[in-house]
Structures are given as C-alpha cells and as structure tokens.
C-alpha cells in the first residue's frame, strides 16, 4: 500500500481520498500497520 501511494505521490498527486470495505475494522488496522510506513516514507508527517 505504501509503495503504491508513493508512486501516486511521485506522479504529481497532492492528496488521496481513501475508501475501505469496512471502515470500522480497517481504519484501525490501517492506522497501526500502514501509517507508520507512510511516515517513514515521508508521505505523512
């Protein structure tokens, strides 16, 4: 997910609106598993 978002960012996209299948479950998982990687990649502060 982080790799793909990095490609989108490098293509000149300033922001992405996310959709999830089940926000209730998946947002928590995204926050714990993906957000740290996005910060590490410099895509989030």
């Amino acid at each position, binding site marked *: 997910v982080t790799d793909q978002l990095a490609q989108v960012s490098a*293509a*000149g996209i*300033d*922001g992405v609106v996310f959709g999830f*299948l089940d926000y209730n479950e*998946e947002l928590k998982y*995204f926050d714990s598993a993906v957000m740290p990687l996005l910060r590490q990649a410099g895509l989030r502060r």
Partner: protein
Amino acid sequence: VERGGAVRLRLGRLPRPAGPGASQADPEALAGLINAGHSPAATAFSAREVDFSFVGFDSVEQVRTVAARMREKARTDHQRDIGVCTSALVVCRETEAEARAVYRSIIEQGDRVAADNLIKVLGIESQSFNDRIEKYRERVVAAGAPTRSSARPSR
C-alpha cells in the same frame, strides 16, 4: 452541483459577517475549493476556480498525464497553480496475496446491477467518465460491496 457535472464544496470555517462582537475569522483557515468533475466544462471550472481538482485513478501513468494536463491548463488559461488529488480503494492485509484475494471477493460478490445503474447515470449526466466507463464498473462494484466477515483484516 454545477452545470456540466462539476460538484463543488466549501469546507471549513466560514468567516462571519463583520459587526459588533463578530470574530474576524482568518481567511487562511478556510479549506480550499475542490472540484471532482471532468467534463470539458468541469475542467474549465477547475482551472479557473478551485484549489484542488480530483481526478480519477486508472494507473500511475494515466494519473501523471491527467494531473500534468490539469495543472498546465490552470497555468496557461488563468495563471494559477492548483493541486491535484485522487481517490483509491485501500485493501490492506498482512500479505499482498491476502489483500488481492479480498479485492477479488469484493468484485465477485458485488452488486453489478446497482453498479450498472450508477454508471449509466454518471455516463449520461456527468460526461466525466466517457473514456473509462468499463474500468469504472469494477471500481463501483468494489465501492458498493457489502461487508463480509471473510474480508475483514486479519489479526
């Protein structure tokens, strides 16, 4: 909803009218104007008015081209810099194979009749997706799929 399929929203704190006791809202506190339409009229509106244009996502190469074109139009026609955003369905699981299996399951179990109905309305009434309706069908199925316990994140 603007003529031509553009949809615009103003977000954030709006300045209150000046007057006795009225707070002076910082104009910088206002979030930007966005537009998610891509008919010719909507593209012209984006170039002229908005801070962020939302573009559809098919591939990295496609979005790179569309984003560059949108920025260039705003610069050329109106000497403005605008931002470009997109949207994505995120399916994250412990492994890529699991995530891809969930996505396949969403497509297989999706409501194709509902997706077709939405595509018809988009095609006829917005003209934003004429060149990508078929690809968009899959996306609509994914976005409208019912939640399945098998599709939840693994722990």
